[in-house]
């Protein structure tokens, strides 16, 4: 099948869209495999291949991610770019491929962006402080199944950044709320629950992400379907942290 890819090329501080016509693609290819094919051609033609992040290619590591025709990870719902197959496009389609864009996600090169801001949000409080060796028996604290399921649903976040890329406010609230919810609904996460909310949100804001306006754009592109209700939960925790708790 044939596709025309208009790909953002950037080396240095500015970039532009460059058009590549590919006419020997198979519908069974993944989108990233189509980029592989393009790169093989570019290299042999003496041109610079397109830089893009990817690793596991099975939709779990969160390393890949591009905007395809203005949609994070492309048109198929709940799917990362590496798991998006060309059978979801029509022969002859023209696709604009751009990197994630948000102020806290600077472009490194072509489609590669720096998402280290996410690590800093986790470092600010996205954990349970339990040094190795200090844990009680795993069955010491039963967890009601509904809580375990809610925690799991939120914990499925792969940290790809699609939520930020899609958000009209450049907000990382879905990412932040997913972790706060995962740990906040489990009994193991209770002691630090409010402190965690406060520290993670403070870091989120300090990194330059925007605030959430509940437009839901994030959850509609999230490859793991993290629900918007996690944000309401985080809001509640943060308000409680500031209004009733004295611990800092």
């Amino acid at each position: 099948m044939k596709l025309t890819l208009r790909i953002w090329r950037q080396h240095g501080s500015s970039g532009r869209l460059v058009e590549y016509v590919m006419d020997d693609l198979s519908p069974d290819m993944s989108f990233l495999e189509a980029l592989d094919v393009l790169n093989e051609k570019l290299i042999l033609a003496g041109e610079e291949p397109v830089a893009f992040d990817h690793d596991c290619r099975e939709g779990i590591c969160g390393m890949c991610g591009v905007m395809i025709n203005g949609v994070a990870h492309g048109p198929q719902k709940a799917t990362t770019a590496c798991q998006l197959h060309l059978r979801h496009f029509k022969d002859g389609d023209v696709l604009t491929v751009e990197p994630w864009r948000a102020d806290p996600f600077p472009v490194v090169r072509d489609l590669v962006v720096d998402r280290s801001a996410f690590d800093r949000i986790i470092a600010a409080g996205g954990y349970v402080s339990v040094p190795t060796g200090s844990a009680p028996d795993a069955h010491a604290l039963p967890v009601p199944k509904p809580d375990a399921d809610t925690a799991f649903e939120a914990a499925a976040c792969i940290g790809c950044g699609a939520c930020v890329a899609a958000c009209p406010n450049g907000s990382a609230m879905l990412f932040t709320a997913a972790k706060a919810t995962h740990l906040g609904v489990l009994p193991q996460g209770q002691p630090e629950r409010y402190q965690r909310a406060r520290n993670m949100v403070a870091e989120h804001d300090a990194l330059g992400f925007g605030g959430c306006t509940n437009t839901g754009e994030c959850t509609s592109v999230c490859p793991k379907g993290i629900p918007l209700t996690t944000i309401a939960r985080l809001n509640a925790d943060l308000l409680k942290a500031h209004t009733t708790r004295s611990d800092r």
Partner: protein
Amino acid sequence: MSFHTEGPPIADQRVPAGPIETRWDRRRFSARLVNPANRRNRTVIVVGTGLAGGSAAATLGELGYRVKSFCYQDSPRRAHSIAAQGGINAAKNYRNDGDSVHRLFYDTVKGGDFRSRESNVHRLAQISVEIIDQCVAQGVPFAREYGGLLDTRSFGGAQVSRTFYARGQTGQQLLLGAYQALERQINAGRVEMHARHEMLDLVVVDGRARGIVVRDLVSGEISTHFADAVVLATGGYGNVFHLSTNAKGCNTTAIWRAHRRGALFANPCFTQIHPTCIPISGDHQSKLTLMSESLRNDGRVWVPKNPHDTRKSNDIPEAERDYFLERMYPSFGNLVPRDIASRAAKNISDEKRGVYLDFADALKRLGPLAVEERYGNLFEMYQRITGDDPYKVPMRIYPAVHYTMGGLWVDYDLRSNIPGLYVIGEANFSDHGANRLGASALMQGLADGYFVLPGVIGDYLADGPFEDLDDAHPAVADTVSEVRGRIKTLLAVDGDRTVESFHRELGRLMWDECGMERNEAGLRKALERIPELREEFWQRVKVPGSGAELNQQLEKAGRVADFFELAELMCVDALHREESCGGHFRSESQTPDGEALRDDARFSYVAAWEFTGEKPVLHKEELVFEHVQPTTRSYA
């Protein structure tokens, strides 16, 4: 013609003698400690941030050591442990189904086809219990039952239900636990994180591992980092086969470079082929995707009785289906270990046709909701890749390279033969023998990182801190200039073939001759072809761009160059081991009904290879079995 020479035997000097149940306790007691105030001035480098590296860096940071952590990905959370689906074993016996530390130990030694060390495996089984506690306390959302207690399921090679899981994302959830612990230490200033940095060489000074040379993958800058000890947690080398279930970036460079600096490489030919992967769809294929072994709990594997049957799977009547695993291995059925299931599939079908993994019975017995609860995300993944709906049509699966049991040789302390160089997780060879059981990789990675390494590394660091180093030191300067030289050479070739084309060709060769089934003629052919191909690589490879920028082709070129050298050693190892065991099946050594035939009299040893630049030198470490008597592995 022999492709190797033999050197003196070696032995594990650090394992205590005496009762196996107390060896770990006694070793921890005999290991020297570094007092808490002094830990601040001991630096440890940890390369890799998967389950082993992430948990080790976090735990060493908690203990008060100064830790420098490195990963090639953009975040430590992306290491490929994240892709492990099925679960993690632990001898908790929560099911009261007869499990115990001894049974997990026994199953693992047997599952490894009697090519692993009893002491290491016993320790692994003991620690398994603590791992679950630790992970639960971190908030890992394991699957639970309605009573609020942890759920478990069965995995290949075991008749008890000891596998803890978090839907099909156990590796992800465990890794996030370790990653969060690591980020906590980064925040506390105890761990210095270097993401998007790739280790390109090991710095050895006066016989001690003292640091690493890394390339900043964004700027291209080459720099050195020094420490009192270096820990490699860089995973396995399955990508030598080009197509595998590994992440695209997984590579052998860190351990291969350490091997070239003197670290012994043990059992390189022991690779695991996973039976349930999605078959190849075309030449463009960039990787293979695993379907968790847990699917074999409820899915039934079959092929059409007539191999030339062209009907669609659902049109083939029950009577014309051959449930070959159930037929051949009635007591374990679909849950035989991976090596056995893979070879059975290979013998009965081929890459193009694959075999069917059918959930029709489970859907009838449990209902679609229960099936979705257990395997929903796996089914979705299958549908995304193939376009077929497993709720309606049986999955088509085929074996693929998945895990490498071989790795750098380490002693009981996980220390390589280079003082100060520790190797943990899949990067070492230690616990799985010739075949790893399902749900044991996560167990081993976390055992090494959370408990074993932090428990004994003090014994070495107590001798430190060692002398300060800088780039002017001759040994350091030499290493750095070698690294720069290699990069320069790769960029200078400017040939007419891409790195990918070489990788593909090498992978095909390895899959054909050193894959699921090996024989002398094929291995000799590979050993002739690999050096030719490697020579061609250095003559014709084309690496665009420069070294001073983000250059993904340059990264890949360096990795593939090392795969060429490793591939040769794998074939040498496979050729010399004239027996079949676990993942290593030599067609010359099989029983009349086609099962693997071990040769304990000649090959009950670990093959540890020394790099010389000429023919590799084999050092044998004899394996002693006091608690589990080697028998013919039977799952019938």
